[in-house]
């Protein structure tokens, strides 16, 4: 996994609550057996006016000019600003893969669905929960004539909107460490092989039917 370094990015404001993972990447794209290439189909049903299928040439498709991702102000955005319960629904990791493939490294919302929140960290995306009031403020700025740019500093847990005041955010110490160092869970877990074996020995006696 890539290490998460401090960067400054453009904020794309997606003003909807309960955005589910099927909206993030519709089911027809889940037939892929790869991890990459989902970016062009991120938010497919909102982003295009025609129906998308895997293998289509997206450059020939009908663009929905009213959808925020297609607004030229937000071209190259790497920070997604969203509303409550972002990422609800199916557990598909294709959702963070699509966001990442498109270029989003940070998602800011008042709340996230659990599995999605977790899946973000596994893929080097930083989901940030902020109070509704602060999110409202960011929406107001991001909706302005000029795109809002924010510096994201994970090490010091600070967002620094250009020309505005810094905003602190919470992140659990373990996830932060993994993001900063680019560590993956499998490598971390395999440092504890002896503990796993010891647990299994104990369980084999307590609950032998789990080991036949």
């Amino acid at each position, binding site marked *: 996994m890539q290490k998460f370094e401090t960067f400054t990015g453009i904020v794309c404001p997606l003003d909807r609550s*309960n955005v589910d993972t099927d909206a993030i990447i519709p089911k027809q794209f889940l*037939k892929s057996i790869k991890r990459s290439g989902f970016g062009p189909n991120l938010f497919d049903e909102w982003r295009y006016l025609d129906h998308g299928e895997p293998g289509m040439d997206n450059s020939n498709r009908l663009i929905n000019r009213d959808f925020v991702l297609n607004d030229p102000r937000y071209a190259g955005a790497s920070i997604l600003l969203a509303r409550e319960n972002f990422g609800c629904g199916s557990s598909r*990791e294709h959702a963070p893969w699509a966001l990442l493939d498109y270029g989003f490294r940070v998602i800011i919302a008042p709340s996230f669905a*659990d599995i999605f929140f977790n899946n973000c960290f596994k893929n080097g995306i930083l989901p940030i929960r902020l109070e509704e009031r602060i999110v409202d403020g960011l929406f107001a700025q991001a909706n302005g004539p000029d795109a809002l740019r924010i510096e994201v500093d994970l090490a010091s847990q600070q967002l620094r909107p250009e020309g505005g005041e810094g905003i602190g955010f919470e992140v659990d110490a373990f996830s932060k460490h993994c993001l900063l160092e680019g560590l993956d869970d499998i490598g971390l*877990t395999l440092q504890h092989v002896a503990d796993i074996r010891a647990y299994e020995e104990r369980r084999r006696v307590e609950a032998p*039917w*789990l080991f*036949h």
Partner: protein
Amino acid sequence: MTPKTLYDKLWESHVVREEADGTALLYIDRQLVHEVTSPQAFEGLRLAGRKPWRAETNLATPDHNVPTTGRDRGITDPIARTQVETLDENCAHFGITEFKMDDLRQGIVHVVGPEQGATLPGMTVVCGDSHTSTHGALGALAHGIGTSEVEQVLATQCLIQRKSKTMLIQVEGKAGPGVTAKDIVLAIIGETGTAGGTGYAIEFSGEAIRDLSIEGRMTVCNMAIEAGARAGFVAVDDKTIDYVKGRPYAPGEADWAKAVAWWQTLHSDEGAKFDRVLTLKAADIQPQVTWGTSPEMVVPITGRVPDPAQEADPIKADGMRRALAYMGLTANTPISEIPVDKVFIGSCTNSRIEDLRAAAVVAKGRKVAAYVKQALVVPGSGLVKQQAEAEGLDRIFIEAGFEWREPGCSMCLAMNDDRLEPGERCASTSNRNFEGRQGQGGRTHLVSPAMAAAAAIAGRFVDVRELSKR
């Protein structure tokens, strides 16, 4: 000793090690695998030159992408076919048991697991699918995971986890006639909202939950995720133990008594503390119908489509307006005046034998309304299908004008050919009514199997309790 919740017991019995920061390495007893969320996990294993830690703890079956008709012709969509073939190859390569598409035991993972006794009380169960909470009905700690975690469980048999908060949802008293597990859980989500359970593990309890069969409890736990909770479960009782007994993967003679002795401890102790408690009265619950694009947008069949003008919260009102526009509905319309184009009886929420029986009771001797373009019945597994056919349920459905299909996820998420066309309205026994869930532009109303069958017969939503009076 401090009294413990069921969640505490399930959690503590699976902690391999705990870190000072509160994260824990949690041991996983069973992983269920399907074709959509596993290819990248297997690819990861191969790339790292790893083998499954305990291949035998994994059980695979294709379900999301399989066709529900003409199985003998194979899968015609080449991309879907590749995905199913990739599962076959991966399972063969890594020594994982798979019930392939032509196996009688194939079906939706969440139907197959309990049916086989592969998911048991007291287990930790995971699957790359959010509806893994279903298995909590057996008194297991079961939750959905992403593909990176699928790979981690394959490689290490563990997950790095943090303990959830606990919520107790009590449904007190007896449910009225015509009120099913589905209505109970939809009513619960109507109370909690779709994010109300976020960060919690939910224990469902109370007389109305205990009165449910294990299958009914699966319906309730299945939808815990629609309340935002990754895991939902019910304490073990005699019904649980009777359900498990004799299933192919259940403990045999030698271990049975020992297993039962442990399972009988799997309930919350008297006086155990929960972070949140919610109580509903079963008698207040009517058959439910969702009207919007989120499972929390639900009303009783006797109700009307809500009016955003009556909603004080402007963000909520806006969401309601958007949902009404998508659903093609007008505020204040009585639910019983909404016509349906299609009907879907199936999915991991409601495709077990009991669900099909409930729908068949309504369908028997009646006809699907001429207005209804298609009414599908999709059993949850090959074994459910076989059982239903032995009971003659297939004949009842076919004579009434329903289509009787092969097992799979089907129109629950429309990855195969079973789907809604734009603007079509469906009475569905599945679990999600999100925009486009059953096909782009499709409009989903979530209901119980009996209510879905009743809608097929009447051509509109109808109170199943009225129908049974006639």
